[in-house]
Every structure is written in structure tokens, then in C-alpha cells.
């Protein structure tokens, strides 16, 4: 075979690989769109988005998605309360205080933490964190939003830390020197110069973290319960959008029914939310790159 033929084949194979993932994504969006459309022909979109009861699997079917959104938001908010400050502070430490060799050790370890299968975190929340929290809060249900929220925060913290640290490392050394030369301490330099200068990068990290929390599935499916409930109370069982999709997928809901189509509608909503957040995050990071090119 001539070199040119070989090159031609290699090029086509590579193109095929690239196209495969693009086509898969397009296919997923297509299926989501078609099924969602079918769902919305039965349930008016306004009822879906503003209804306060979600009981598609009961005989008195109600399709108000707000309880699922509330559950997702509640768990995500708890996770963010843990992940954002801890992630940012650990990034400040790693970027501004830690000696180089310590950073070289700690950062990969943090990133490994992000690679632990989420099902492990789920059982960690259900069988360890929840009983522990029940010692403190006796009213806490076995399934609740608090425990998976906290564990999810721990899981996402390394992501926030790593991305924020990258953003801070991209701040030119000259800015730090300028600050030190004016008699600033390390903390003043970190908080008043480096963090503001890395602001868009850090914001991008935060948004990515929120999007990760909203899409996180296993932890909440295992430890948060399966009771769609429009509440801000973290002590009682709730259900998130992702956990609902798992519940229906694992059950014996027949294809083509309205119950079955709900998971596509919820999935579409989830997709729009995380996709929007990722877009904002990418845009912010691009902007950041321009500032200190």
C-alpha cells in the first residue's frame, strides 16, 4: 500500500471517530427533543414548569416539575456551601502559600479524589454521614437532602480547588510582586490582588461546579430519597431531577406512555440548565484568557 493511500485511510478513520461523538450528541439531543415534544403535547408547558406537584407514577397524575427542581436546587445549594469556600480557600493555599513541592504532591491527590466513583460517595452519605448527622440532629430522616448535599460538596471541592488554582497561577507574577513591594502581606496579596485578578477564572470554576452538582446523580439517588417535595427543609426526604430519572429508568414503566416520557422532559430541562451553565463558564474562561494573554 502506498504512503498516500495509508494517509488517506488514516485521515478518514480519524474523521469518523470525530464525527461519531458529534453524531452521538446530536442523536441524544434529537431523542430528547422528540420525546419532550410528545410529552408537551399532553401536558401544557406552563403546567409542567409551574406546577407544584409531581406524581406521574400515581393514579392521580400531576406533572408539575417544581418539586424536582426544588430538590435539585436544595442539594446543590448545600453542596455549594461546602465546595465553594473550601475549594477557593484550598486554591488560595495551594497557589499562594504552599511550597512548590507540596503543591506538586497535593494537587494530583485532590484530582484523584475527584475520580472516586460517585456510587462510593452515595453509600458514604447513606451509611456513614447520615447516621453521624442523626447523632446531632435526631429529627433527620434516613433519607434527606443534607447528607448527600454535604458529601457532594466534598466531592466537588477538588474540582473548584483545581480550576481556581489554575486561574490564580495564570495571574502574572509581576502583580504579586507589585503588591508585596507596597508592603502587602501574603494574605492581602492573595485576597486583594490575586483572587480579583483571577475572578473570571474562579467564577468559571464555580459555575462548572454548580453545573456538576445539578447533574450529579448517584449520590442523590442513593441517599436523598424518592419523594418529590416542594420544600427547603434539608432534613426530610426529597427527590432531585436526576434521581427521578433513575427511579423511572430502573422501574417497569412501559415505553411510549406519558410516565415514560416524563423522564425525557425532565432530562431535557436538566440538559438545558447544565448546558447553559457550561456555556457561561466557557465564555468566562475565554474572557479570562484574553486579559492575561
Amino acid at each position, binding site marked *: 500500500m502506498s504512503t498516500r493511500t495509508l494517509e488517506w485511510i488514516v485521515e478518514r478513520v480519524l474523521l469518523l471517530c470525530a464525527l461519531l461523538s458529534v453524531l452521538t450528541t446530536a442523536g441524544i439531543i434529537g431523542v430528547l427533543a422528540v420525546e419532550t415534544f410528545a410529552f408537551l403535547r399532553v401536558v401544557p408547558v406552563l403546567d409542567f414548569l409551574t406546577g407544584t406537584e409531581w406524581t406521574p407514577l400515581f393514579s392521580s397524575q400531576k406533572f408539575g416539575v417544581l418539586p424536582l427542581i426544588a430538590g435539585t436546587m436544595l442539594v446543590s445549594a448545600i453542596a455549594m456551601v461546602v465546595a465553594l469556600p473550601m475549594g477557593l480557600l484550598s486554591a488560595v493555599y495551594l497557589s499562594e502559600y504552599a511550597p512548590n513541592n507540596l503543591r506538586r504532591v497535593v494537587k494530583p491527590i485532590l484530582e484523584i479524589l475527584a475520580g472516586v466513583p460517585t456510587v462510593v460517595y452515595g453509600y458514604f452519605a447513606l451509611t456513614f454521614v447520615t447516621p453521624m448527622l442523626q447523632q446531632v440532629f435526631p429529627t433527620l430522616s434516613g433519607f434527606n437532602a443534607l447528607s448527600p448535599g454535604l458529601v457532594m460538596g466534598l466531592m466537588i471541592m477538588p474540582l473548584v480547588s483545581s480550576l481556581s488554582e489554575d486561574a490564580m497561577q495564570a495571574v502574572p507574577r509581576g502583580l504579586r510582586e507589585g503588591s*508585596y513591594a507596597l508592603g502587602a502581606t501574603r494574605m492581602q496579596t492573595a485576597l486583594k490582588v490575586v483572587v480579583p*485578578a483571577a475572578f473570571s477564572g474562579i467564577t468559571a470554576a464555580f459555575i462548572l461546579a454548580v453545573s456538576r452538582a445539578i447533574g450529579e446523580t448517584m449520590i442523590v439517588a442513593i441517599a436523598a430519597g424518592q419523594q418529590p417535595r416542594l420544600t427547603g427543609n434539608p432534613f426530610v426526604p426529597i427527590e432531585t431531577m436526576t434521581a427521578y430519572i433513575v427511579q423511572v429508568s430502573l422501574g417497569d414503566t412501559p415505553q411510549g406512555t406519558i410516565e415514560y416520557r416524563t423522564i425525557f422532559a425532565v432530562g431535557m430541562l436538566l440538559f438545558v440548565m447544565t448546558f447553559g451553565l457550561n456555556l457561561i463558564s466557557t465564555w468566562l474562561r475565554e474572557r479570562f484568557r484574553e486579559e492575561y494573554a
Partner: protein
Amino acid sequence: MNVERRRPVPASLAGVTTSRRGQSPAAFDAPVKVAVDGLNFYYGTKRALDGISIQIRSNLVTALIGPSGCGKSTFLRTLNRMNDIIPDTRVEGTVLIDDQSIYESRVDVVQLRRRVGMVFQKSNPFPKSIFENVAYGLRINGLVKTRAELEGRVEESLQQAAIWEEVKDRLQESALALSGGQQQRLCIARALAIRPEILLMDEPASALDPIATQRIEELIYELKKKYTIVIVTHNMQQAARVSDQTAFFWLGRLVEFDRTDKIFTAPAEKLTEDYVTGRCG
């Protein structure tokens, strides 16, 4: 000193120190502000400064010249302990500022840097407004009590750095929108705001065009009335124009230190002469 081996200095440099614009003669008997004795500096095991001893006098401009990597910037940064933030470095010898050693463990580096300001080669305004750039040092050091006082000090600093007229109507705009020369003058204003006694300038004009460079040089003439200035420069003409005394560094050693006119017209060392006339380095 070996008089015989000295060669004539080219005319292009010979007259240059006499061309200063109506300056009062420099006070070479001014009190010693910075006294350095036997200073060695190491990056890891590499020795970057070798036995530097020098006395820098008040309200004079001292220029540090020499080829790249000769240690002049490193030396400058030992005077406000800026090298402390570089890991794995070590200092030996003494540096006295107003007869106080700055490398003793009880010395507060923050206090030291407040007294010894610094302007960098690459202008480094913070990505904040023009006003906030100048206010930063005042705020973090708690030097002002009221908003009016803060605004007064910011204006005063911008005026001293000869940039007030250009920015007074746009103080809330981002400092990054200024031109390179303006950014550098803003950085000088920022350094002056906390009223240092000594101003270190690390090639402050090397990235600027000739007009912006001239403005910085004119500024240096003005500033030396109030500050002791140490300036690193690669530009011989600049050293000759702005400084009263010049120190020539070579491979981490201080080869010669004298009045600027002597260094450029009748240097004692042949190495100095070769360097200032462009025969080496």
C-alpha cells in the same frame, strides 16, 4: 589605578553628563542612606552576587549598569528583600538602611517595603481602576483615615508622578486601558503613595518608547529632591543622563562605583571602560 592603560573615551559619551538641564550640583557628601557590606546572594547553590560593598547616599540617583545576568537586578531586589519571595535563595553579608540591618529576623519585611518602594521593568498595574491602584498601598497599610484624606493622597501621588493631568477625569477607568508609558507612571505614583524614603527602579523605561522614556527620566530628576533613588538600566545614555553615581556590575561583582561623570569619562577599571564604550558586554 593604572593610568597608562586607559584609552580615550569616544566623544559620543564624553559630553553626555554635562548636558543636564540646569540641575543643582549633586551633594556627594550627603549622608549614607544604604550601606551594603560583603553581600553574597545565592539562587540555590549558584552565587549571583559576590562580595558587594557599596554606600548609597541620600537624595542622589545611583545607577546600576552591567550586562544581562550580572546581578544588578538581584542586587536591587536585596534592598527591599523582594528576593524573599523566590524560593531557595540565601543572603550573606549586611545591608544597613539608616544604620539598621534589614536582614535581621526581627525586621518586619512589610515595614521595610513600605520604606523602600519599587518600580518594575514591566509595568504591573493591578486590574483595578486607576484610583484603586494608587489607593491600594494606602488602604492595606492603613495609612489614611478618611475618604477625603485618601483622595488627597491619591491626587498628590499622581501629581508627583506627572500623570495627574492625563487621568484626573478618568480615575474610575481601568488602569489596563492606559498606554505603556502611562501605566509605568501610574506604577510610580502607586509606589510614591505610601511615601517611601528610597525608590528602587528596575529598568523602568526599557519597555517604553523614547518620548515616554524621556518623561520618566524627567520625573526622576524631580523625584530625587525627595527620595533616594536606585535605578537599574541597560541604557548607558540613560545612566549618564539621570544618575549622580554609577555602579558597574560584572558577573556578580561590583567592578567600579564612582561619580557618574567619572565612570563615563575616566573610569579607573579597564573593564568598565570597555563596557561603557561598547567594546564588551
